[in-house]
């Protein structure tokens, strides 16, 4: 039995799991990684450089690929045989990946550090909680991450948006320059975006060639995915055993209450297995890690593992979200030009009211920008009859719509004339927003599923109202007209449904007090010293920043702690 024992068992191969595997295999540990999904390799399986006309579907979504048939994510809003439920009167949208690399194949690569204030919100506004660590504790790990994975950006010295170690950012696209000019006029700052895409070679990874298809998986490994960047060096050590189609069921514990390994079901054969390990690291994504703990019940841990505080599953947040879009007459009849660039925005609007305490909500948001002459796909030119009546030239006497050569030309003229903005903001972590085990529903493997109970408060709604107002100011100042009606209180200020922004965090939170937190400041369970969590579950607060860069910096720091504790024979 002992010979089968690994030093470390990691559940999940996404951002967090990949990072822990990378760090610990290189530190000499024998690591086994359980991944519920199948093998997927960006170099081999990515659809970079595929033109939409190569498929009769022209890039349209399919039930299996809700973000488009070439999108590099096996999974989606619904997984066959793996339901989840929601409390009455609430909704939760949950995007899950089932593949090696998790959601890091198709993620947006927006790679933001949390700022110093993001770790001490309670101190600043009395809401939520402070983290048990500060920005300075995490800074060296962010620095290492920047160097190891590669990120572009510019040092701008913006308050609470710490600069990193950046490669040069790509110049803005035409429509981005235009929008930035409007934002400037509206008093809103614009800086180059910060994406984990290589604008210079790094190690054996070549620089980006600007095909604009990051979400399809990069065959030259010029952007970050856990599978293409973190796993190859981990495999090269000879210390990593990856088991795919391995759906973890629960964390096993011994009589002393310590973790002894993980039990899992092979999803292909439905056979049950157990792996033994001295240390267990959960990185199955925030909600799945909480689910695993809650399902790991024993006489010593009747409320689920690492959960005598009863916080596991609680304090769940997602980013707030809302979208606005403008039509810009000056983009009509543009000279031929290419808008593709990297697969994501080149400019970014950080929160610019960080020190302003006069707003009717407490936390900030940032603005992401999209638009341009992107690759024509299914849906191209949809509903043109609503807009082409307003174009200059030709016969417009009967309004929009029409047919024939004038219509054909209208499509050309209108291509890329819409530019949009998405607000992404911080939700305050609250105990009453949670996921728990649904006592009545199991998935196809017999594993009890999660039931969600999450709602927005006025804090989040008013924040998105502010976004909508700002976005319209920017659109007008840039010479455009807003396409959608301004939402109202009746439709919750156009806020997305909880979960839709796919930034779930907080379900196994850190803290110094074992009564109010599940993990200590090293993401180690207060109760089970050989159990760690390395995804977004340990987050104490959300920040308006997309979470993944912090997931990885924190996972690195956690891995370092594990390595030194093992060396000192503390665990």
């Amino acid at each position, binding site marked *: 039995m002992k010979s089968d024992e690994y030093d470390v068992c990691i559940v999940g191969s996404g951002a967090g799991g990949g990072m822990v595997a990378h760090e610990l295999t290189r530190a000499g540990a024998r690591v086994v990684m359980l991944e519920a999904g199948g093998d997927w390799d960006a*170099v081999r399986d990515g659809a*970079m*450089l*595929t*033109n939409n*006309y*190569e498929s*009769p*579907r*022209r*890039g349209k979504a399919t039930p299996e690929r809700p973000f488009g048939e070439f999108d590099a994510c096996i999974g989606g809003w619904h997984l066959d045989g793996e339901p989840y439920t929601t409390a009455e009167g609430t909704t939760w949208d949950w995007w899950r990946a089932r593949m090696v690399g998790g959601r890091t194949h198709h993620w947006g690569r927006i790679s933001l550090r949390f700022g110093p204030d993001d770790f001490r919100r309670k101190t600043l506004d009395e809401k939520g909680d402070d983290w048990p660590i500060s920005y300075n504790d995490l800074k060296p790990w962010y620095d290492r991450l920047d160097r190891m994975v590669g990120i572009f950006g510019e040092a701008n010295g913006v308050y609470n948006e710490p600069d990193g170690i950046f490669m040069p950012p*790509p*110049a*803005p696209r*035409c429509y981005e320059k235009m929008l930035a000019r409007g934002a400037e006029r509206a008093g809103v700052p614009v800086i180059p975006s910060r994406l984990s895409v290589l604008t*210079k*070679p790094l190690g054996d990874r*070549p*620089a980006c*060639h*600007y*095909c*604009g*298809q990051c979400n399809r998986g990069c*065959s*030259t490994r010029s952007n970050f995915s856990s599978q293409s960047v973190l796993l190859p060096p981990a495999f090269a050590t000879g210390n990593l055993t990856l088991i795919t189609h391995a759906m973890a069921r629960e964390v096993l514990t011994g009589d002393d209450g310590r973790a002894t390994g993980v039990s899992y079901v092979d999803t292909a054969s439905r056979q049950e297995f157990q792996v033994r390990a001295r240390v267990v690291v959960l990185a199955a994504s925030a909600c799945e890690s909480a689910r695993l703990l809650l399902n790991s019940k024993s006489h010593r841990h009747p409320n689920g593992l690492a959960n005598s505080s009863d916080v596991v599953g609680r304090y769940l947040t997602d980013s707030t979200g809302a979208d606005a879009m403008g039509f810009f007459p*000056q983009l009509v*009849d*543009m*000279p*031929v*030009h*290419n808008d*593709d660039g990297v697969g994501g925005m080149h400019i970014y609007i950080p929160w610019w009211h960080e020190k302003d305490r006069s707003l009717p909500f407490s936390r900030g948001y940032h603005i992401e920008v999209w638009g341009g*002459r*992107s*690759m*024509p*796909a*299914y*849906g*191209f*030119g*949809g509903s*043109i*009859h609503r807009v082409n009546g307003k174009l200059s030239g030709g016969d417009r006497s*009967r*309004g*929009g*719509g*029409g*047919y*024939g*050569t004038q*219509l*054909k*030309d209208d*499509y*050309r003229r209108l*291509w890329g004339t819409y530019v949009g903005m998405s607000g992404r903001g911080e939700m305050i972590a609250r105990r009453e927003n949670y996921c728990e085990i649904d006592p009545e529903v199991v998935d196809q493997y017999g594993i009890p599923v999660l039931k969600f109970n999450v709602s927005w408060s006025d804090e989040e709604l008013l924040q998105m109202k502010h976004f909508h107002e700002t976005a319209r100011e920017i659109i007008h100042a840039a010479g455009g007209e807003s396409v959608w009606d301004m939402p109202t209180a009746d439709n919750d200020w156009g806020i997305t449904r909880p979960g839709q922004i796919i930034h779930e965090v907080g379900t196994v939170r850190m803290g110094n007090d074992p009564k109010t937190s599940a993990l200590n400041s090293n993401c180690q369970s207060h109760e089970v010293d050989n159990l760690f969590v390395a995804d977004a579950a340990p987050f104490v607060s959300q920040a308006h920043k997309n979470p993944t860069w912090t997931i990885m910096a924190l996972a690195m720091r956690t891995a370092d702690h594990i390595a030194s504790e093992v060396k000192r024979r503390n665990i």
Partner: protein
Amino acid sequence: MGMDRRESMKVMALASVALAVPGCTTRDMERAATHAAERVARQLPEADRLPTILSPTEYRTVEVLVDWIIPADERSGSATDAGVPAFIDFMLADAPDLEIPVRGGLGWLNAESMRRTGIMFADSLPPDQQSLIDDIAWPEAAAPEMEAGVRFFNLMRDLTASGFFSSRIGFDDLGYLGNRPQGGWDGCPDEAHVHLGLD
């Protein structure tokens, strides 16, 4: 066609290696290009596909209708040149929600044509086809009793544009320059700057 396309993909990819993508080796680029070209080769050309949902009559109606919506002009071919009827037939199978509005609408079009001229739409004279289309192509100007036709025509206009501009012919028509290895990234070209009135 498969062969030329494979070759042209390679040439395209390799040409940009000559522009020296920083750190991108010829091997990287070649591998990416071959990978893409192999996928192209596996595709069945649009024209070889037989209609699976539409009946021969419906298919012919679609062929005539989509060429009214997007005809050939000096820059590019027509909707049927770009394979739009086959695309629409495929979409009806792929997105079942579309089947009833499209096939129902084709029925409406033929019934209306019969009412007016005694012949099906595709067989009627071009001026008769045009006057029917004129009555449903401008939602704001259309008579209230034409509402079903207007809704159908809006849908067909959208589907035709989707199919045409996402085709190879459509890409070239638009002058889409992306989704290929670029030698670097220069941002917004001067002419575009001037057009936008940015310095």
